[in-house]
């Protein structure tokens, strides 16, 4: 019991978030007879996959003291480059690799602007948001490009033993990056940079290089999202990912990540994503909620969840 208490105290944030998620599941299960089913839980995961993948990169970025508002545009532009290469070469493998590589490259550009040129992360990534989106619209002319190749669309559409492929991929990404953040020098360095960049530099951490890597990671994950989005929609959408950055930030802030940097945990981000996903799914399933009220209900439930979380945080901190 003593060790459980210690564990609970150490992981109070995460347990609180899990408790909120469980409460929401209970409430929505009571309100809608269609909520508590295996099929619907699969839907919840599939529908929130983009958010979940972006949350990994955004967690790293925010813990390091930064911000990346360009991830939505990176999804669109890396998708464009990947699809164009696929059409030129006929090779799905090359096209998919291009999506991910392009995302990484765009992330590196962000990292150079912020880490090496010292531009404020908010300004730099707002600018690249516009540039990448504009480039997408220029190349596509605002039109969607159909992609029907099953290899290219594998991540978005395939199933293994009736489970969408994205689910084990998501689980794998979270296991991998949780390990990186918690158990590697790279992960420890990110916390140090976010906590006190000057002290981190003085202690020998290559702050600029680490910043570059963090944004490259965020961009790479956005590139993976592009692969998933194209597969799921069987097309490249020029407006893909629009608004994704803000939803991602809301989810991980709900998960308790300190927007000032230096604190946070990937599992807490995942819990925040789960709460948002549950709320959005329930809004889709409850017919009584008029679409005009969706915005109000969404905001109210998020505020309610944060309020419970903050209250419990304060109480348990005493």
């Amino acid at each position, binding site marked *: 019991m003593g060790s459980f208490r210690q564990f609970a105290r150490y992981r109070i944030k995460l347990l609180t978030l899990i408790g909120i998620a469980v409460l929401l599941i209970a409430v929505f299960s009571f309100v809608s007879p269609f909520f508590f089913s295996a099929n619907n839980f699969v839907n919840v995961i599939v529908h929130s996959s983009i958010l979940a993948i972006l949350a990994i990169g955004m967690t790293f970025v925010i813990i390091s003291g930064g911000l990346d508002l360009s991830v939505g545009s990176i999804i669109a532009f890396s998708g464009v480059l990947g699809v164009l290469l696929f059409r030129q070469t006929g090779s799905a493998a090359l096209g998919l690799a291009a999506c991910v590589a392009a995302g990484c490259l765009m992330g590196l550009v962000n990292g150079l602007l912020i880490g090496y040129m010292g531009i404020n992360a908010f300004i730099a990534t707002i600018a690249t948001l516009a540039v990448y989106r504009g480039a997408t619209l220029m190349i596509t002319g605002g039109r969607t490009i159909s992609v029907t190749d099953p290899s290219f669309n594998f991540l978005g559409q395939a199933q293994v033993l009736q489970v969408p492929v994205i689910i084990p991929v998501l689980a794998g990404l979270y296991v991998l990056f949780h390990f990186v953040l918690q158990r590697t020098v790279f992960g420890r360095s990110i916390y140090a940079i976010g906590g006190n960049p000057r002290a981190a530099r003085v202690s020998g951490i290559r702050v600029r290089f680490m910043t570059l890597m963090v944004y490259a990671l965020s961009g790479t994950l956005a590139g993976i999202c592009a692969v998933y989005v194209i597969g799921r929609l069987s097309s490249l959408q020029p407006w893909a990912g629009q608004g994704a950055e803000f939803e991602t930030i809301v989810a991980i802030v709900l998960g308790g990540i300190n927007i000032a940097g230096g604190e946070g945990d990937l599992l807490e981000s995942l819990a925040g994503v789960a709460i948002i996903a549950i709320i959005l799914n329930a809004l889709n399933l409850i017919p009584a909620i008029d*679409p005009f009220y969706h915005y109000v209900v969404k905001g109210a439930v998020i505020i309610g969840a944060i309020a419970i979380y903050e209250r419990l945080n304060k109480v348990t901190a005493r």
Partner: protein
Amino acid sequence: MKGTKRLLLVLLIGALAVSVAFAGGKKEPGGMAAEGKPVVGAVMVDVTNPFFIQVMDGGNQMAEALGVDIIWKSSEGRLETQLALIESFIEQKVDCIWIDPLDPEAVKPPIRKALAAGIPTVTGANLVEVPGNVSTPFPAYDAFYQLTGMIAAYLNNRGNVVYMSGIPGNWILDSYQAGFEDGMKRFPNMKVLSIQPAKMDPALANQIMESWLTTYPKGRLDAVVFTTDPDMYAAIEAMKNAGRVGEFALFSQNGDLPAVEMIQNNENGVKIDLLSHGIRIGAFNLMIAARLAKGEEMPEVLWFQYVPVMTKATWDTIVAGGYEKDVQKGDPFGEDYITPQRAQEIIANAASEFRNWEPPK
């Protein structure tokens, strides 16, 4: 210690609530129609745009007339959301799903899923070729192709025209433009002086009209063609400010009440408006969805038809000017024309137009 206890209490309550919900949640076999009324799930592109509010009004009127329930959901302009909503409706086992697709290719996988689950589907405004799906596309290309014939006849096959297009990349709006451009090519003495995208933004439409008024002095322009009525209203304001309202013949699409009244009262130069109107679109699609929900079979393609609104005097003028229907892909017009009074009746009671509608043989 105290905090840990409270936390454990919250988790315990949560676990109990889950158990109660699992044990006590009501599950209706056969989905949502247990009370007898068929349920249609409607996935709209957006519900904040005035056009879609009209669509919802028309759908609600028809739903009441035909005795079905309708659940409205908004995709908020996002394709990922649209797919998620369709999948949620499959989960809810509604009796029919009506979709206004953001992208006709991307919605095919969830439509196949719905059909495989025994739920019929209707896709409005677009041709979505999935076996078993009913599409109600707009004959947008043909509508504007035919409109150019009316414009040319009105101007005695000689004149200068400008065209205010929509959002590049939007299938319907691009089709209007393509129909307009191809239709105009038939008339060598009709010149298209400019095509500018107003992007369905009235503020931009106003600016474009101001530019045209500056560029084309009196006598240089004979007609202005609009993709949508709100753009036309904004442009009319620019004409009024420049003191040039009534100088040109105006042609548009939508059939909004203010535009129809302008035709009736011979105001502002508005001559012909193609009545589509969100309220008709909503009523038509809900009628199809309701009939599918009740187990009826429908052809896989049912073209939604526009109706030109004009006065009899305008009709006589264009007939005298040699207007002849020149059908390309399909006849876009349900009738040759209707008067503004008839248009007002239809807009006021959308259910009356389609209640006893039968598909073409």
